[in-house]
C-alpha cells in the first residue's frame, strides 16, 4: 500500500471527526470557533518553514517560503491571541 492511501484515509477520518466535533460547538462560541480555526489553519507554517529554510532550493522558492512563513505566523499569532481575548470575556454570572 502506498503512503498516499494512508494520507487519504487520515483525511477522510479527520473530516468525519471534524463534523462530530464542530456540530457540538454552541452558537454562542461560533465567532471564537472561526478565529480559533484560523489559528489552527496556520499549521501551514510547518510547510512554510520547510520551503523557506531549504538551502538547496532556488531563491524564488525561499522567497515564496518567506511570504508563506509571514502569512502563516500572522494566522497563528493573531488567531490564538484574538481567540483568547474573546473567550476570556465569556463569563457566567
Amino acid at each position, binding site marked *: 500500500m502506498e503512503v498516499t492511501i494512508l494520507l487519504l484515509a487520515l483525511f477522510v477520518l479527520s473530516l468525519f471527526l471534524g463534523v462530530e466535533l464542530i456540530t457540538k460547538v454552541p452558537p454562542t*462560541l*461560533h465567532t471564537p470557533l472561526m478565529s480559533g480555526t484560523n489559528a489552527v489553519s496556520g499549521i501551514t507554517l510547518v510547510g512554510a518553514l*520547510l520551503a523557506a529554510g531549504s538551502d538547496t532550493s532556488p531563491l524564488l522558492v525561499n522567497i*515564496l517560503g*518567506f511570504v508563506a512563513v509571514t502569512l502563516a505566523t500572522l*494566522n497563528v*499569532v*493573531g488567531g490564538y491571541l484574538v481567540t483568547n481575548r474573546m473567550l476570556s470575556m465569556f463569563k457566567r454570572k
Partner: protein
Amino acid sequence: MNPNLVNLVYLIAGVLFILGIKGLTKPKTAVRGNLLSAVGMMVAVIVTLMDSSVVNMTYIVAGVTVGTLIGALMALRIQMTSMPEMVALLNGFGGGASLCIALAEYYSRLGLNATSVADLATPMAVGSSAFGDGFQGTVTLISIALTVLIGALTLTGSAVAFTKLKEIMKNSYGLPGGPIGNGLLLAAALFAVGTVVMDPGNTSAMLMLIGLAFLLGIFLVIPIGGADMPVVIALLNSYSGIAAALAGFILGNTVLIIAGSLVGTSGLILTNIMCVAMNRSLGNVLFGKMAEGGETIDADEIYAGKVTSAQADEVALILETAKRVVIVPGYGMAMAQAQHAVRELANAMEARGTEVEYGIHPVAGRMPGHMNVLLAEAEVPYDKLVEMDKINPTFDDTDVAIVLGANDVVNPMARDVEGSPIYGMPILNVDYAKTVVVIKRSLSPGFAGLPNPLFAMDNTIMVYGDGKKAVIEMTTALNQA
C-alpha cells in the same frame, strides 16, 4: 531528526488541536482548549525547525518576526465590532500561505531558478520522477494545482470580503451572466488545473491558473453583500482549511491534513447553519438575489396610519412593570456600538426584579456568533444569550421584546405570508410578546428590501433614533422611576 519521531510529534500536535476544538464545545473549557491548541502548534513548529533540511534561518526569522508583530498588533487592538473583518483577513492569509507553499513546492521540484518574471513562463523539461512516481506523482500534482486554485481564490475573495465589511466597497457588482460568468471562469480554471497535472513543465499554464483563481475569488464575493456576509466568511474559512489539507498531501504531512480538514469541516458546517437560518441554498446566497419573486409589497399600505411611535422615557414606563423582557440585537447594535448601553439597561431592569434574556438569531450581525461576542464584551453572562429555538417558545410569556437594530430576522412575513421572498426563513417570534419595542432610525427596509408588518402591529411601539442614545435614555428614565 528521525522522521518517525517527527511524525509522532505531529500526531501529538494533531491530538492537541482536536482537544482544543473539543474545549470550544463549552464556554467554561474554551480558554483552556484554545491554549491546548496553541501548545500543539508550538510543538509542531519546534519539531519542524529541528528537521535537517531546515538550515537557512534568514527567511524564517524574518517571516516569523514580521508575522508575529502584525498578528499580535491586530489581535490586541481590534475592536470586537470589527471581528468579521479580522476573520476575513485571517482567512485570506491562510489561503495565501497555502498558495505560496504549493508554488514553492512546484517550482522547487521543477528546479526552476527564475530571476525575472519572464522566467516564470519558461517551459521546463520535467524529470521523470520530479513529482514522484506513478499514482503518488499524480496525487502530488493534483494537490499542487488544487491548492493553488483554492488558496488563490481564498486570498482574493477574502480581500474583497474585507473591503465590503469595512464598507470601502459599498456596491455589489457581478460578472455579466452572473452564475454563468463564474461558471465559465471556474471551467477555465479547472482546465488549467488539468493542463498542469498532465504537463507539469507547462509553466504558463500554472501562471494562467493563478490568474484565473485570483479572478474567480474576486467575482465569487463581489456580488454579495450586507446580511449575506456571514455565509461568505464561513465559506472562505472552510476554503482556507481545505487548502491547508491539500498542502498536506503535497508535502506528505499528516498534521497539515488533520488540522486542515478540521478547519474545512468547521467552515462548511457554519456555512450550512447560516444557510438554514436564512432558508436559502448556498447557490442562492452566492448567485441569487434575495428579493426576487413574489409580488411587490407596498410599504405605505402596510404602515399607513398604523405605526405607533413613542419616546424613550415613555417606553421606560412599560419596562417598569415588566416581569420578563427579551432583547433582540441585530447588526444595528454593532453599528451603534450599543452593547454596553444595552447591558446597563438590562442591569437597571434586573435591579427592579425583571427577568432579562437575549434572543440571538443565527444570522444576526456580519458573522456567525457576532452578537454573542459583542454582548460578552459588555459582560453579559453567556447563559443569558439564548439561541432562536430555545427563546421562541418563551415569547408568549414575555412582557416586552426590545428589538435593537434587527429587521429581517423579526419580520413576521417570513412566517405568515406564503409567497413573500423570505417565506420559510426561521424568525424570532417577537410579535408574540405583549409589547414589542423596536428601536430604529426610520421605517426603512432591511437587507431583504421588504417592509416589516411588525412595525405596524398593535402591540408594537417604534422608538426612532440612534440605538445607543435611545437605550441610554431608557436606562436613565428607568433609574429615576
